[in-house]
């Protein structure tokens, strides 16, 4: 059984059919990419799977269980984590605290214990601080750890989101354009990072416009166009598919 199965998924916003009848499956341990021109529905697809939008039609299953329409916070409990195309960093917190929020579900969230600072809770919090710093080192942000998120540059924030998602110890991680807006050196670093994540047994679903990165890194690729599934397959199959070439005409596939 595939880790994630999507069946005939559709989402309409008024008249706009952002995702139409899309089906695919992601096997555990793979890097699975979703590509397509701007407005193809990639982000909408992520939003549907991670519970931010409710599907108009179709089903989504994680480990065989239907998760369509379940709230995002409940999906996090099932081991889903993600980053956002338009940064969703908490600018009112420090970089380290952002990462610590990622570990939310592993912690004691009791209000009274927190106010009275129970020793167990305080100890776990200190440990978490170290773990979060370790994660920031992993994504290459160790120098920022004590800084407010609002004073970090864009490229660092992109990586901060990855660190935060990793802090949740997810089994499946959705990355929405992690390299968008980055220069080629930074893109290479993200490429490297995604590989490291995948090597740590996290299934990665990736949306990315950087074709070099996508073709290199992906085990399988899903191509969307105008909300519809154009094709799906390995990097080579996709690259040689005439429909894909037509959809991308003029861009460097």
């Amino acid at each position, binding site marked *: 059984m595939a880790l994630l199965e999507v069946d005939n998924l559709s989402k309409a*916003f008024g008249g706009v059919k952002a995702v139409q009848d899309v089906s695919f499956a992601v096997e555990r341990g793979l890097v699975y990419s979703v590509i397509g021109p701007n407005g193809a529905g990639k982000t909408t697809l992520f*939003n549907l799977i991670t519970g*931010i*939008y409710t599907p108009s039609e179709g089903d989504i299953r994680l480990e065989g269980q239907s998760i369509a329409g379940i709230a995002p916070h409940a999906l996090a409990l099932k081991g889903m984590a993600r980053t*956002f195309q*338009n940064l*969703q960093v908490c600018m009112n917190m420090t970089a380290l605290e952002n990462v610590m929020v990622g570990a939310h579900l592993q912690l004691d969230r009791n209000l009274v214990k927190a106010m009275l600072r129970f020793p167990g809770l305080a100890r776990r919090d200190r440990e978490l601080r170290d773990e979060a710093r370790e994660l920031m080192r992993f994504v290459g942000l160790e120098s920022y750890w004590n800084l407010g998120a609002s004073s970090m540059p864009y490229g660092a924030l992109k990586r901060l989101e990855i660190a935060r998602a990793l802090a949740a110890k997810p089994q499946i991680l959705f990355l929405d354009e992690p390299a968008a807006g980055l220069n080629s050196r930074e893109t290479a670093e993200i490429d490297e990072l995604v590989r490291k994540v995948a090597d740590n047994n996290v299934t990665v679903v990736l949306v990315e416009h950087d074709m070099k990165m996508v073709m290199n890194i992906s085990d399988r690729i899903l191509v969307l166009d105008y909300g519809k599934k154009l094709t799906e397959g390995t990097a080579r199959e996709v690259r040689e598919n005439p429909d894909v070439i037509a959809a991308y005409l003029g861009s460097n596939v």
Partner: protein
Amino acid sequence: MLPQFLQFLFSGITVGATYALAALGFTLIYNASNVINFAQGEFIMLGGMLVFYFMQAGLPLPVAVALAIAIPAVVGMLLEKLAIEPARDAEVVTLIIITIGASLVIRGLIQIWLGKGAHSYPGFSGSDPIHIGGATLLPQSLWVLGVTALVVVALWYFFSRTLAGKAILATSCNRLAAELVGINTQWVLLVSFALSAALGAIGGVLLTPITLTSYDVGIMLGLKGFVAAVVGGLGSGLGAVLGGLLVGVIEAMAAGYISSAYKDAVPFILILFILFFMPRGILGAQVTERV
């Protein structure tokens, strides 16, 4: 039975029309700037108090009325220019506090200038009640309803038929896009505040002969106007008018049939019910927020 009902209905829609005007003012400013203007009620107060003052000063009614609408409009523009514009990027709470500060300043000044007493002036067409179905209707109520209807039609015309109106609508849809197509959004904001202040003042000018006015009536009237705007789905013009009438009528009915002591609580009980069961008001749109 029926006459009593009619009586409550009449007083309900009369007050409701004033709420509707205030609600339209809220809606206008909310749409143009996302600000909830807690000073809206003060414009209602200003309208009534200024007519009173100018008539006492010996000016004829039409001149007094014109001034009582024009001055609040200028105050509205000043508020926008001096207080809202410089704080554009502030959080919602901050903006709310700024407008509350403005409302305190306005009513404080009026209190110093015109005192704490309650004031009124005669109705525009006398005060001989008209008898309908056993109930009585003051001619001033007809003024309130007539002018409100006229204002609503004029606003509709303004927003759907004139360039200026469309520019305001465009700005409320998407400020950035409006700027890109060359709309002067600063000007739009200024006009919205002026218009909304004028709307509030008109309500005050019309209602005062029926209900009296004093320096401190603004807050309750304004809050009820806000309720009306939210009942109508915050952002919808038609919703604001319906919301205003609905709030006015329900308030009058509850005061008449249930308890007049709780009259002022009625709009707020109503709004809680609506927020519970119709979270987006009567005519509010359903949107999926983009992520």
